[in-house]
C-alpha cells in the first residue's frame, strides 16, 4: 500500500465516523430541526470524505468526476429536502399541531 | 463458505417471510412479508446463476429483473387496495372485518 492508499483509508474511516455520528444525532436529538442539523452536516461532510477517499483510491479522471457528481447531487438534494422538511416542521409548530 | 452462506440465507429469509405471512394480520405488514419471500427466491436464483462453467448465467438475472417488476406492480396494486379497504371499512386487518 502506498502513502496515498493510507490517506484514502483515513478519509474513508473519517467519512464513516461522520455518518455514525450523524445517525446517532438523528436518533437522539429532540426535535425535527436538530435532527436535520445532525443529518445534513454528517451526510454532506461524511459523503464528501468518502468520495474523496474513493477518488484517491481510484485515481482515474472519469472515476473522480463521477464521484464529484455523486457528491454535488447529494448536496443539492439534501439541502433542498432539509429546507422543505424544516419549512414543513415550522408550519406545523406554528399551527400548534406538533413539536 | 460463500457457496453455502447465500443459499442458506435465502432459505432462512423465505422462512422468516413465511412466518410473517402466517402471523401478521396487518395487511401492509403481511404484504412486506410476502415481498420478503419473493426477495429470498430472487437471492436463490442469482446465487445459482454465478457458479456455472460459462460465467454468470444471465437467464436467472433476467428472471429476477422481471420478478422485481412484477413484485413492484402487485405491491403497488395491493397498497391501493388496502387503502381503499381502509377508506371503506376503516379496517387494516381482514380479521377485524365481520363477514356479512
Amino acid at each position: 500500500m502506498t502513502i496515498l492508499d493510507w490517506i484514502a483509508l483515513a478519509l474513508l474511516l473519517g467519512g464513516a465516523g461522520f455518518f455514525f455520528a450523524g445517525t446517532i444525532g438523528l436518533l437522539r436529538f429532540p426535535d425535527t430541526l436538530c435532527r436535520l442539523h445532525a443529518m445534513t452536516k454528517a451526510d454532506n461532510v461524511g459523503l464528501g470524505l468518502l468520495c474523496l477517499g474513493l477518488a484517491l483510491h481510484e485515481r482515474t479522471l472519469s472515476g473522480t468526476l463521477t464521484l464529484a457528481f455523486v457528491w454535488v447531487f447529494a448536496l443539492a438534494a439534501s439541502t433542498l429536502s432539509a429546507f422543505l422538511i424544516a419549512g414543513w416542521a415550522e408550519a406545523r409548530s406554528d399551527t400548534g399541531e406538533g413539536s | 463458505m460463500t457457496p453455502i452462506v447465500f443459499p442458506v440465507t435465502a432459505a432462512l429469509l423465505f422462512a422468516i417471510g413465511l412466518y410473517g405471512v402466517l402471523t401478521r394480520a396487518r395487511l401492509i405488514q403481511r404484504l412486506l412479508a410476502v415481498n420478503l419471500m419473493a426477495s429470498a427466491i430472487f437471492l436463490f436464483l442469482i446465487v445459482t446463476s454465478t457458479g456455472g462453467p460459462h460465467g454468470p448465467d444471465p437467464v436467472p438475472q433476467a428472471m429476477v429483473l422481471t420478478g422485481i417488476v412484477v413484485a413492484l406492480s402487485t405491491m403497488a396494486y395491493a397498497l391501493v387496495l388496502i387503502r381503499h379497504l381502509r377508506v371503506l371499512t376503516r379496517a387494516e386487518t381482514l380479521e377485524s372485518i365481520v363477514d356479512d
Partner: protein
Amino acid sequence: MTEAIDGLTAGSLTALILGPLILALVAVALPRRRLIDSAVMLLALLLLALLLPLSRAVLTHGPLVMDLGGHDAPIAIPLYVDSLALGMLWLLTLLALAIHPYASAWLQRSDHPHADDYPALWLVLWTGLNSLVLSGDLFNLYVMLEVTTLGAVSLVMLGQSAGAVSAAARYLFFALVGSVLFLLGTALVYADIGLLYMPMIAVHADASPAIVVALLAITAGVAMKAALFPLHAWLPIAHASAPTPASAVLSAAVATAGVYLLLRLWLGPFAGTWTITTAQGIGVIGAAGILYGSAQALRQQRIKVIVAYSTVAQLGYLLLLVPLAQSPLAWQGAVYHAVTHGLAKAGIFLAAGNLILAIGNDRLENLSGADQFAAKNLLVIGIAGAAVAGLPPTGGFIAKWWLLSAALGQGQWWWVAVIAVGSLLAAAYVFRILQYAMRQPENRAEIDPRVRDQSLPYALLWPPALLAALALGLGFSGELLAPFLQVTDLSPALGGTGR
C-alpha cells in the same frame, strides 16, 4: 417442432394473445364504450373463425409448438397448443363473445360507477387467460398467473361494497402467496435441471428432491389461486360479491383456467414424478371437493353463493382426470366437462344477473312468482343447471358419461360413486332454485318486479340463452367433436414432443 406451424397458425396464435391486448390499449387510450363494445364483438368473432383452422391443424398434426422470437428450444418461450388447450381457447372465446355485450349492457343498466373501468380490465384479463392457456414456459406462466390474478381481483373489487373489497383483498393475499410458491417451484426446477421449456422438462425431470418439492410448491401455489377444495375459502365470497357479469367470468373462465394449468403441469412436465398413491390422493381431494361444494351449495340462501359453491364442486371433477389419466376417454371427458361447465355456469350467472335486475337482490325467498315475470331466465337456469348436473341430453351428460366409462374401464369403480352422487346433489341444488321460483306468493300483489323479461334489452337476453343453448347443443355433438378431443400422446402429455 415448428415445421407444422404455417403462417395462418402463427397468425392465429398471435391474434389470440395480442388481439385482446391491443384492443385493451385502445380502450384505455380512447374510452368510447360503443366503439369498444363493437370491437370486442368483432374480435371475438374473428378469433372464433381463426380457431377453426387452428383446431384442424391440431387434429391433423397433433400438438403444435411455436417458439417465440424465432429462437430454438430450449432458450425460446414456446406457445403450445394441444386438444386440452384448444378446448380452453374455444371456451374463452365463446365466453368473451357472450359475456362482454351482456356485461356492458348490465353495468350500464344498473348505473354501475365502474362501467368505464370494466372493458379494459376484462380485455387485459382475456389476454392473460389466453396466454396462460398457450404458454409452454414455466417462468412465463408465473408472469401470466400474475396478470390473471390482478385482473380477477380487480373484477371482484368492482363489486364496490365493503364486502366485495374485503373479498378482493382476501383473494389477493391468497394469490400473492400462491405466486410466491409458484416462483419458488420455478426457481427450484431451473436451479436443478436448468430448464424452463415445458415440453423438455418432462424429459429431463426425474424424481429428485428439488423436483418433488418444486411440484409441491407449484401445486400449492396454483391450488391457492384456483381455489381447489381445501384452499377454496375465498372463492364463494369473492365470486358472489363481484358484479354479476364479472362473477360469470371468474367462475367460468378464471377458475377453470387455474385447474387447467394444474392438469397441464401435473400431466405434462411433472408427469414423471407421479405414483399410483399420489394420483389416487389427488382424486380423493377432487372427490372431497365435489361432495363438500355440493353440500354447501344446498345450504345457501343466495343464488350467486349457490352457484359459486357449485363451482368449487364442479372443479373437483377435473381433478379426477389425474387418477384416470391413462384412459383417452377420461381426457375427452375432462375437456368436455371444462367447456360445458364453463358455458353453463356463465349462462346461470348471467340469467341470475337478470333476476337481480328484476327483484333487486338474489335471495331465494324473494324469488316467489319469478316464473311469472322471468320465465325465460328461469328456463336458462334450468337448462344450464341440467348441464352442470350432467343430466341428458346436455353436454354435461356426455362429459360425465365419458368420465364414468373411463373409471369403469380401469376398474376404479369408486369414482363412479362420487360422480353419481355429485350429479345428484347438483341436480338438487339447481332444482331448489327453480322450486323457490315456482312457489306462488301468498299475496299476488306482492309480485312487483322492477323489470319484466319483456322490457329487458336484447343484449341482456341473448347471451345467457346462447350459453345455455351451447351447453345443450354440446350434448348432441359428442361424437362429432370426439376426434378433436383425442390426446394423441397420453403419458406424458407434453413431454412426448420434447427433443
